[in-house]
């Protein structure tokens, strides 16, 4: 793009999100004024405009598949990873909050409406590593 000397994405909120994730906390933000919960994090509540937001640790990762795609072709470093599945999941404990993340391969075809769980246990010391997993799959990642 035209000028990438400053990364507009590296906002205070993102740095704080990463810092918390590095300590094993997967966090969203809650608006102090209207109580709406937000993910991804940002500088203000887009529902009511309040800039008073409080970090909130996700209570657990239980979720339901709202959408998914299997990428059979990709670019950059992702070209070597195809095919890969990406899920948008609704978090059961946080209504209205969705997380988009890679889904680690299951033995069965995944469909919309399936139960999944967001796992951020491998994030410590390696920021930005969170994944949807199949709830029927034994946890082999640890």
């Amino acid at each position, binding site marked *: 793009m035209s000028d990438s000397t400053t990364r507009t*994405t590296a906002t205070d909120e993102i740095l704080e999100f990463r810092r918390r994730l590095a300590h094993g906390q997967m966090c969203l933000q809650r608006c102090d004024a209207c109580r709406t919960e937000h993910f991804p994090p940002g500088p203000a509540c887009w529902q009511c405009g309040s800039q008073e937001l409080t970090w909130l640790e996700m209570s657990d990762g239980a979720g339901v598949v709202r959408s998914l*795609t*299997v990428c059979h072709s990709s670019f950059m470093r*992702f070209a070597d990873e195809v095919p890969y599945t990406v899920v948008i999941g609704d978090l059961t404990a946080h209504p209205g909050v969705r997380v988009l993340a890679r889904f680690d391969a299951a033995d069965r075809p995944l469909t919309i409406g399936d139960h999944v769980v967001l796992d951020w246990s491998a994030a410590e010391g390696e920021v930005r590593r969170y994944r949807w997993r199949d709830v029927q799959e034994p946890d082999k990642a640890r």
Partner: protein
Amino acid sequence: MTGQMTMNGKYAISGVGVSPRSRRSEASLIGMGLTAATNAIADARLTAGDIDFILGYQEADSPGPQELATYLGLSECGFYEILSGGTSTETLVAGASALIETGQAKKVLIFRTMKGRSGKRMGGGAGWTDEDWETLLPGGEFLVPQGIFNAGQRVALLAAMHLHEQGLDESVLGGICRTLYDNAQRNPDAMMHGRPLTMDAYLATPYVASPLRLHDYCVETDEANAIIVQATDRARRDDRPSVVVRGVVPKLATAPTFHYNAPDPTAIAGGACSARLYESAGVRPGDFDIASIYDCFSWVLLRQLEAYGLVKGPDLEDFVMSGQLGFDGALPTNTAGGMLSEGYTHGMNNVIEIVRQLRGDYAGTWRQVRCSLGLVTGWAGPSVATGMVLEAR
């Protein structure tokens, strides 16, 4: 709702021009742009010296208006350009109208030149890095590391959600592709001319990002397009109708911009955009004889049909599968083949086609649709939309 912006045909698209279209142009970007601009100027029955303002759009992949002005031989020329893809043409038509209305310009040329196939390919990321994508995309930090960045991957997630929630079979996407490829068979300049598509061939093609297959992606091309906007009374010609802008809505954003966390992620900005557009233009969605609907992906066209009020949700599948987007259908759409099968300049080629149709340029041939009122839509992701109503007068 603003509603106060009543264009009511004061400004017209008085000329259109294109360069040759190919997968690999031997001409330079500025040379292609100059060809399209020169053709548009001639089509408007103007000379280059009449142009006093140039507007452009690009994605950091082309020279700008000031360079074009130089090679048009203009010693002075106003200009600006926007860093933007889809929704640019309508936005710049609104900009041109405002410039003329406020006395800052009289004859405005709008252009796009790109080597979208042999040069920087949008679908391939135009050579951008992870960091570029994260900067470019709202909420990119939460997309790109997961392997979601290019338009096809982002649209695929919305398409899968929408098809599931509406109970639509994915063959409906093939239905859109088949009809637009059929439309392209009447256009010798379309990339897919001579290459009609059957549903069997569509379904036999593997996924790129499910549920999207190769044909669901627009066809990348090297080409340049140009149009000219001026006051309608100065653009009148005896031998053809003027194509006037009856209403236009430039880029409209609906929140949130990181769309998958909207209360209803399948809702798109086209809904709010069309409400504004139809009120300001004084039209209803059933009034259109022809449409130019942004079709970077088949699903993007499908979704807009409902959002712009053209087809009711439960009727979508029947409407598409029975060929209503074709020449003999209820709403001939992207009659040159669209970006799915003609070529791709982020929307301007579809606008050029609808202008030609409204003027009757193809009269007496099988390419002509009987039409006097047309709808143009633009898309720059689900939360950014444009719209324009064009009328032959």
